[in-house]
């Protein structure tokens, strides 16, 4: 029996049942079916994963989906080590977030809707990662985008939420535009859109070029960059990163599940999946590395100046996603996927802990929090662990994956590798700095909110704190499967993925590896110390700094004004052209002018002709005579 089919279709069944019967029958029991099905998927994923570890790889078509001429594509599943890792992350972290949501969404009037969308999301996410072809990947890709749209705009009566959902969907469409063109190019080049034939034939087209507007472009580079466009949109990299921070309008479990642990990592997954293509284009690899590296530092600097607790974490997510791309760009796909996997735990934890805080305080502004640790010790402790893990403190999950990335960048031997290594080392300072800034401001010192708010402070119920504890254990321990060899580990994670992702060549000595690790660890710890000085001891320093470096502070606070830029160079011109030029002039004046003008001219002509029909017999006689004259003249001519 193909039990792996249960993995995606259980959540789909939950969606169908909840959306059809949720409003009338199920109502506040909607979580039962959603949670049980995802736990079912998790169990099936584990069983499948064990099969994969034992060397069984599944690549099966379920049925033929679309056929037209030579184009043919199936709904089919590929389960290999890379898929197995993703399955574990999506269903594992997903289950914990589902359970947490029971507490967080309790009493919301859209309760059944929330769980329906979550289940639908998981279905599409699973279709995405389990696909064996590009079209089904695209199905999942757009599907998760849709659910993201629903869930960001979940509280749709709020304009900001509805706007953010729409923005996310449309921004992603820009990326998907490129992605779709990439898929078209793949079909035209290989005559197939299934992974196995494409990846096995890609080496035969090395060096081929294609003419674009007079320029000869390397075919593989073109395909890789077009695919990467999709990843840039979905994983919110520069320049399409603008939707993710706004996406924080959605309920916090959504931010944890979709905008941290799973959906936004789909871009990284896709690049890793297509490593056979990317590996053959140095240009594309460099673009991936640089976009990732720049986004990583860019977002980290913004996070420093944000006061919305969820936005801090959102920019942190951008930054970490950038790191994953950076790893892929230097050929260290396994390191990127490793970070994807550890990140899912500590970032989901950061979000859920933040959700727990928001649940208690009732708003997102860390400047109006403070001293929360005595009211909510579990939340405090778990978030602390998450921040340590995110900051790359040795021994925790985040450390191992981040170290792997930093080392891969340094040891890749290329100039681009060195450049992004500098970037990511700078990020290694900012990550712990902003994480602990957030924690110190929220949990330490005195409570700075109103008296009324203080009265309400409480620890969250067990249904929320237990998932936090599980995730904290994950944030500590999941990295231990990838301890590098110089620390006495076996790097099992990279070994496991090697058949799919290969292994990069390192140019470096053990001494260098120790040195790099020592450097980044020192930088990370100094980040925490400086945060402690700024926000625990000498709290006047950051205020003074913000005043003295006001232009920089405002630049960071306003996120480098990218949103404003897009508004002025893109949105307003398009609307202006549509209203004034197209609708106002071409459609209303030119085309309609002709359409209404021709009959009018005919009408005027008719008025003149009508005058001939005077009814006076003599006039008719004259016309007749003239007619006869002309006819005779013509015949005689």
């Amino acid at each position, binding site marked *: 029996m193909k039990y792996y089919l249960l993995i995606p279709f259980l959540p789909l069944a939950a969606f169908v049942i909840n959306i059809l019967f949720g409003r009338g029958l199920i109502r506040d029991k909607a979580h039962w079916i959603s949670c049980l099905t995802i736990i079912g998927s998790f169990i099936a994923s584990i069983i499948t994963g064990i099969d994969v570890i034992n060397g069984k790889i599944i690549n099966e078509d379920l049925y033929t989906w*679309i056929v*037209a001429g030579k184009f043919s594509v199936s709904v089919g599943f590929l389960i290999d080590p890379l898929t197995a890792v993703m399955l574990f992350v999506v269903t594992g972290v997903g289950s914990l977030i589902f359970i947490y949501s029971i507490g967080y969404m309790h009493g919301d009037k859209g309760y059944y809707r929330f769980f329906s969308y979550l289940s639908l999301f998981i279905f599409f996410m699973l279709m995405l990662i389990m696909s064996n072809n590009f079209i089904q990947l695209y199905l999942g890709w*757009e599907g998760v985008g849709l659910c993201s*749209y629903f869930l960001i*705009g979940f509280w*749709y*009566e709020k304009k900001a939420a509805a706007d953010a959902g*729409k923005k996310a969907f449309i921004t992603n469409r820009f990326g998907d*535009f490129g992605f779709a*063109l990439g898929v078209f190019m793949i079909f035209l080049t290989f005559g197939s859109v299934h992974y196995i034939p494409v990846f096995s034939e890609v080496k035969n087209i090395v060096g081929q070029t294609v003419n674009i507007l007079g320029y000869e472009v390397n075919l593989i580079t073109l395909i890789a960059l077009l695919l990467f466009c999709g990843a840039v949109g979905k994983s919110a990299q520069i320049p399409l990163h603008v939707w993710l921070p706004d996406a924080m309008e959605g309920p916090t479990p959504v931010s944890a599940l979709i905008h941290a642990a799973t959906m936004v990592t789909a871009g990284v997954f896709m690049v890793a999946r297509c490593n056979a293509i990317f590996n053959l284009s140095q240009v594309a690899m460099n673009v991936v590395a640089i976009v990732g590296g720049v986004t990583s530092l860019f977002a980290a600097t913004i996070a420093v100046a944000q006061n919305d607790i969820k936005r801090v974490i959102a920019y942190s997510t951008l930054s970490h996603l950038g790191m994953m791309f950076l790893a892929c760009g230097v050929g260290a796909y396994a390191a990127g996927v490793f970070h994807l996997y550890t990140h899912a735990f500590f970032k989901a934890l950061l979000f859920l802990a933040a959700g727990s805080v928001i649940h208690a305080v009732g708003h997102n502004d860390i400047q109006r929090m403070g001293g929360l640790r005595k009211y909510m010790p579990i939340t405090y402790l778990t978030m602390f662990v998450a921040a340590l893990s995110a900051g790359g403190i040795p021994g925790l999950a985040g450390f191992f994956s981040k170290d792997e990335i930093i080392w891969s960048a340094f040891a890749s031997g290329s100039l681009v590798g060195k450049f992004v290594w500098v970037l990511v080392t700078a990020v290694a300072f900012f990550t712990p700095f902003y994480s602990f800034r957030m924690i110190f401001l929220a949990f330490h010192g005195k409570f700075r909110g109103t008296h009324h708010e203080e009265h309400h402070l409480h620890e969250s119920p067990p249904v929320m704190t237990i998932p936090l504890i599980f995730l904290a254990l994950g944030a500590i321990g999941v990295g231990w499967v990838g301890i590098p060899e110089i620390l006495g580990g076996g790097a099992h994670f990279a070994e496991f993925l090697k058949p799919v992702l290969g292994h990069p060549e390192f140019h470096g000595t053990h001494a260098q590896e120790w040195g790099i690790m020592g450097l980044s660890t020192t930088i990370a710890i100094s980040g925490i110390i400086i945060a402690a000085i700024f926000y625990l001891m000498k709290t006047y320093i950051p205020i003074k700094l913000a005043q003295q470096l006001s232009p920089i502070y405002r630049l960071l606070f306003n996120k480098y004004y990218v949103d404003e830029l897009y508004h002025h160079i893109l949105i307003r011109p398009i609307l202006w052209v549509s209203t004034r030029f197209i609708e106002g002039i071409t459609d209303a004046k030119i085309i309609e002018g002709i359409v209404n003008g021709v009959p009018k001219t005919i009408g005027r002509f008719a008025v003149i002709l009508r005058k001939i029909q005077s009814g006076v017999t003599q006039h008719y006689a004259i016309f007749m005579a003239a007619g006869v004259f002309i006819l005779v003249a013509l015949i005689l001519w």
Partner: protein
Amino acid sequence: MEQMVMNKLSYPILSTIIFLPVIGALILTLINRSRESLIKWVALIFAVATFFLSIPLFTQFDKSTYKMQFVERHNWIPVWNIEYFLGVDGISVLLVLLTTVSSILCILISWNSIKIKVKEFYMAILLTCGAIAGVFSSLDFFLFYIFWEAMLIPMYLIIGVWGGPNRIYATIKFILYTLVGSVLMLVGILYVYFYAGRTFDILKLTALTYPYNIQFWLFWAFFAAFAVKVPMFPVHTWLPDAHTEAPTAGSVILAAILIKMGAYGFLRFSIPLFPDATRAMVPAMLTLSVIAIIYAGLVCLVQKDLKRLIAYSSVSHMGFITMGIFALNMQGIEGGILQMINHGVVTGALFMCVGVIYDRTHSRQIADYGGLATHMPIYAGFFMVFTLAAVGLPGTNGFIGEFLTLLGGFTANKLVGVLAATGVIIGAGYMLILYQKVFFMKVNPKVIGLPDMDLREMVALTPLILFVLWIGVYPVQFLDFMHPSVQHLLERVSVTNIAEETNIARVFMEVIR
């Protein structure tokens, strides 16, 4: 006859589909006009019966051949070699089915919204649908032209009698536009009739070869008729007015089936009759298609009127269809045909959805709504599904058609594919803006207390949701109808078929003698 497969069913299926609605309309004349309920039920029963009798087209169709099937052939006016000749192939069969489905929906959705001249309204609906089914199944040019023009009369009345305040302007525009196009086509039909030695047999005519100069001129003559119907840029401006002023059922007929006649005309006549001219005109056709996609999409972004927005989105979507057709490859044409069905389902459904809310508030202005999702959650759900299909979300039917037409366009010309693909971004933009303004955000006081959809409305719209998902998840079942016919068409157009040059005037001179 090797070109066709005669009808083997126990009843003449195509004649039934065309004339059962006509009989229904005749029976309606016998009913006293005060018995409105009876009138509606009789109309509905005839539409449903027609639909059920059309099902064998789906189940008994032989998907392995390009030949015409369910053929009925009788002499009609032997002096002129005019025959009563009906048949369907993989290109037309789904469109006939779409017509029979649409007529039921039109009747259901008008149930409570038509209050004056009820009897005449339902007669007009039945007659229009019958005539359109005739257009899709005629294999005799003369017969085709009769249906093509006959359809206009009831349609003219539907908009002109039961339409909105500006209906007279809209109907005149609609009729003038289509008549100008049709007249040119009539000239073309007569020309090929005489050229081929006095036959209206479409199968014979499409197997002949014509001189290039004749192909060229006649291509444009037919183009005039079909481009107006599609409508292609720049002859699209009748559609927004017609849609805006038409009653809901009128909009549904327009969007779902009437404008498909244009695209069908390209496939059935323009391409096989004039393959060489078609090939030469591909750049022009693709350009016009891409302009339609982007241009109409941009107009949608700034529309304030619900129906106008959806009307312009039709123009944009039809641009995808014509692009697919003139890409002249399997993906493009099959995608185009499938997208004709999809567009019928989705845009028809969107107009029905607008009708649902218009019946309650009598406003088409987007600004008069807001926060509807809170007050009409079921309605919001229905509307969402069709919105998603309209933006081509994978898993819905819109994706399959849009993807295949884009793939076809991209294969034919990369730049065309790239430009057309921007239409996908624009499409997401205007549909989501529309949805947000109507359903999300603060509740507009004007919508408080509106009742959600009733059973009748759900019955009318649920089948369309099923189609959206069915075609989206398992499109092969529909695409299989088309393969041999499209293959056959491509074989015709892929080789040169130029006959010796003739003087255009000569043939007409023979007529005069």
